[in-house]
């Protein structure tokens, strides 16, 4: 970690900010309206707050508003009060209690506060929660702090000041130099130095240049870009405005996934607001600088995250990548010089201009400066959105920020970088999170998706999942990617079906290396990574599937059977009632039995059982048969 005393802690600023604090005292209640919280019903909680506050007669003392993703998604739906109290897991019916106890009488309601998994202690102030303590937020500086639909709140936090400085006091070369000096590298995955990219686009001679924000966040398990667009759309717009000045582009596009309706809605509003105030349009800040921003909705193709495919898609064609060179900086959108950066990169730019390259450069590891936002998901105690300085170890991210593994289970691996990335096992937990160190393990930083899996996850099945995804999303241009991944998937299918053969692992490795070598773009070039890294670190699991026909994690359906432990079964009949195929029999208060011939292995019984009596068995039957055969031969 970086030195506390010298490092700026953007979070500390957040404490002193006046945004949302009511001028005349009283309370503000901010209900998180990030995607996860909306899924968990935060809009109903918001409505309940508005109603309860009104009914309690506190309407003139309490402001209720929404914010973008606050980060701690595992507590959703989340509400934050102006004394920094964080309430989670709220239901609309609980709101009355919070309003009455806390807002009226000033007593925090214990049971909705964050509970530390280790000590069991309730923590009121969200700054004291381990999840937030270990973070340094730059790209996410205003996400979860301001109302994303209010330009005024963004301005109150110093918004558009960096763009004003850049456009009115700095030359184009100075801006590019500043970005280069900060050492920031593309946050979309490839990690190309942003300053260098800008320089290329700046040097290209053309009457028309374009600027693109890549918000086609297709990686399953990644939602940083989504959260930034939903929580702080103006930061991205301001970053692009600075970029447009540096490069000399007057037209910009934001290519955003149509699967993020909330992000699209807020971004549309933000662009309209910025245009109305003159931050976009024909005469920005009265300097005569023109910059127009357009929204382009993706139509659901993972490969469009690749820059040349994205350009083809904006042009209205099939989103297929093309060979580079010519690079987009020379010939991009409509054949003109184009600069493409990721959402997170753009969101960092205003901070770099406002605080100076040196401040940004202080953070991070040797060749990877600054911070990186990650979306933590999977079997973690604290899932959500986190931003840490580059060079923090995986252990810090997973155990300090993420709070360790849920339900006290064992850490098995962390999947980084989605379908292009790889799995890093427990033995490599002290790997620093930077571009080079992670590449050495076979994984990548990627866009920042981090999915943690525990001992209940089958690595072969996980590899198969990712390969199925990339196989589906392959645009079909390059034969190794189109057919190679298909053959690899068939091999993996065979293995999880229990029909794996000797030599399958070697076959996967061989095919994988061909796909990597023979593909034009990064999709094919990285598609085998999840398979190759799981073979590298979890070869024994593959071998168990192939040789013993056993799934060590008890996940692969063809290799498992369900049974009820008669010792633990209390005969409550719940599983029998819930079983969709009615294959569980047994009298009340007597141990139940599963008819394995009828069982469809839907896992319902195991999930509903309150006594952990339903167990999964894998391999021992096959092993017994094998042993018997051996006995015959002997």
């Amino acid at each position: 970690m970086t030195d506390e005393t010298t490092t700026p802690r953007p979070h500390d600023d957040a404490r002193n900010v006046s945004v949302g604090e009511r001028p005349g005292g009283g309370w503000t209640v901010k209900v998180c309206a990030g995607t996860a919280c909306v899924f968990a019903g935060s809009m109903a909680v918001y409505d309940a707050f508005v109603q309860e506050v009104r009914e309690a007669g506190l309407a003139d003392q309490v402001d209720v508003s929404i914010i973008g993703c606050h980060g701690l998604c595992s507590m959703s739906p989340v509400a934050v009060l102006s004394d920094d109290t964080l309430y989670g897991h709220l239901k609309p019916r609980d709101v009355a209690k919070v309003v009455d106890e806390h807002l009226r009488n000033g007593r925090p309601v214990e049971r909705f506060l964050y509970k530390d998994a280790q000590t069991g202690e309730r923590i009121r102030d969200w700054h004291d929660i381990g999840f937030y303590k270990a973070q340094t937020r730059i790209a996410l500086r205003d996400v979860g702090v301001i109302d994303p639909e209010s330009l005024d709140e963004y301005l109150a936090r110093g918004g558009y000041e960096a763009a004003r400085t850049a456009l009115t006091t700095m030359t184009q070369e100075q801006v590019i130099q500043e970005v280069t000096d900060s050492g920031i590298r593309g946050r979309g995955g490839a990690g190309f130095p942003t300053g260098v990219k800008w320089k290329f686009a700046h040097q290209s001679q053309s009457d028309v240049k374009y600027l693109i924000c890549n918000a086609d966040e297709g990686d399953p398990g990644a939602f940083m870009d989504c959260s930034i667009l939903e929580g702080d759309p103006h930061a991205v717009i301001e970053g692009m405005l600075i970029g447009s000045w540096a490069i000399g582009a007057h037209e910009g596009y934001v290519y955003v996934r149509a699967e993020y309706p909330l992000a699209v809605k807020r971004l549309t509003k933000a662009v309209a607001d910025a245009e109305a105030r003159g931050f976009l349009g024909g005469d920005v800040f009265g300097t005569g600088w023109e910059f127009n921003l357009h929204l382009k909705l993706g139509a659901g193709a993972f490969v469009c995250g690749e820059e040349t495919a994205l350009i083809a898609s904006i042009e209205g064609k099939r989103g297929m990548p093309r060979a580079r060179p010519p690079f987009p900086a020379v010939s991009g959108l409509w054949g003109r010089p184009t600069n493409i950066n990721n959402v997170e990169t753009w969101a960092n730019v205003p901070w770099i201009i406002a605080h100076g390259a040196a401040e940004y450069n202080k953070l991070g590891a040797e060749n990877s400066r600054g911070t990186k936002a990650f979306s933590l998901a999977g079997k973690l105690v604290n899932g959500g959105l986190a931003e840490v300085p580059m060079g923090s170890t995986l252990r810090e991210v997973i155990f300090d920020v993420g709070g360790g593994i849920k339900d006290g289970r064992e850490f098995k691996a962390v999947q980084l970088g989605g379908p292009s990335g790889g799995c890093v096992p427990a033995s490599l937990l002290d790997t620093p999170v930077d571009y080079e160190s992670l590449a050495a393990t076979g994984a990548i930083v990627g866009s920042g998706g981090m999915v943690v899996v525990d001992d209940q996850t089958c690595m072969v099945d996980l590899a198969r999942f990712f390969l199925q995804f990339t196989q589906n999303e392959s645009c079909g241009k390059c034969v190794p990617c189109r057919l190679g991944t298909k053959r690899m998937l068939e091999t993996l299918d065979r293995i999880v079906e229990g029909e794996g053969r000797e030599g399958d692992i070697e076959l996967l490795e061989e095919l994988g290396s061909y796909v990597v070598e023979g593909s034009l773009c990064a999709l094919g070039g990285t598609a085998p990574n999840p398979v190759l890294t799981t073979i590298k670190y979890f070869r024994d699991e593959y071998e168990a599937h192939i040789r013993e026909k056993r799934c060590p994690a008890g996940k692969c359906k063809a290799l498992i059977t369900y049974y009820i432990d008669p010792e633990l079964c209390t005969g409550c009949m719940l599983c029998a009632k819930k079983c969709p195929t009615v294959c569980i029999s047994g009298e009340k208060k007597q141990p139940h039995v599963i008819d394995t011939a009828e069982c469809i292995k839907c896992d319902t019984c195991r999930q509903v059982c309150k006594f952990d009596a339903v167990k999964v068995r894998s391999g021992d039957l096959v092993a017994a048969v094998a042993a018997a055969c051996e006995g015959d031969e002997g």
Partner: protein
Amino acid sequence: MLGMFKAMRQTLRHLPMKKVTVQYPEERITLPARSRGLFRVVIDPSNGEPRCRSCTLCESNCPVQVIRVNHTSKYRLPVPNAARISEARLAAQQGVDLKDLQPVLDEFYEHGTGLIAMLQDAQDVYGYLPRVALQEISLQTGVPLSQIYGVSTFYNQFRLSPVGEHIIDVCHGTACHVAGAVQITEALEEELGVADGKTTSDMKFTLSSVACMGACSQAPVMRIGDQTYGGLTPDSTRRIIRDLMEQVGATKG
């Protein structure tokens, strides 16, 4: 002096040799089977028409981008197997009112929206992309139907067949997969009596899988219309869908 003799020797040596050039175009040589030349479209000898179906595959795959396909094929979009189309679907297909497409086309003429945006708008109008609508767009905009077909089959968002009233999107992102999204889809398949990606015969529900929705901490999640559901189990999924089926009066299968 010496150089002149050398040149003479060279000339004399080649005089009795076989000629390597031919008097084109009067004379022509037969080229080896795999030699490179110019492209031309193969003509089907049986009917004298080109075999090219304007699929644009060559256009999009050419490494040096020298091919442009700019003519609409006389071949139509593949007709779905008629035997498998239920009455309800046929009724929906016939009910395409092209008047509804006018605002989409107006938008194109006024603001120059791109092809993808236009198809998205058309899908918003009809719920899917009816063939007649695609033909109309091609006719009105001059974009070859082949290209429109290419684009509409490339992106996951576009559907070429009608969908049910309620679309059930089950998230199959990494976190949801690890948390058991497969079992959720299986439970829905069983309750609805249709496979993933298919529509019930009464046109009430379409079951589909989508990539990450970004609500990973609530995994596994699904979305039915505007309603979102998180933290699902196969059991709770069955309850939700049974209630919903009862509400809209849907039948299984």
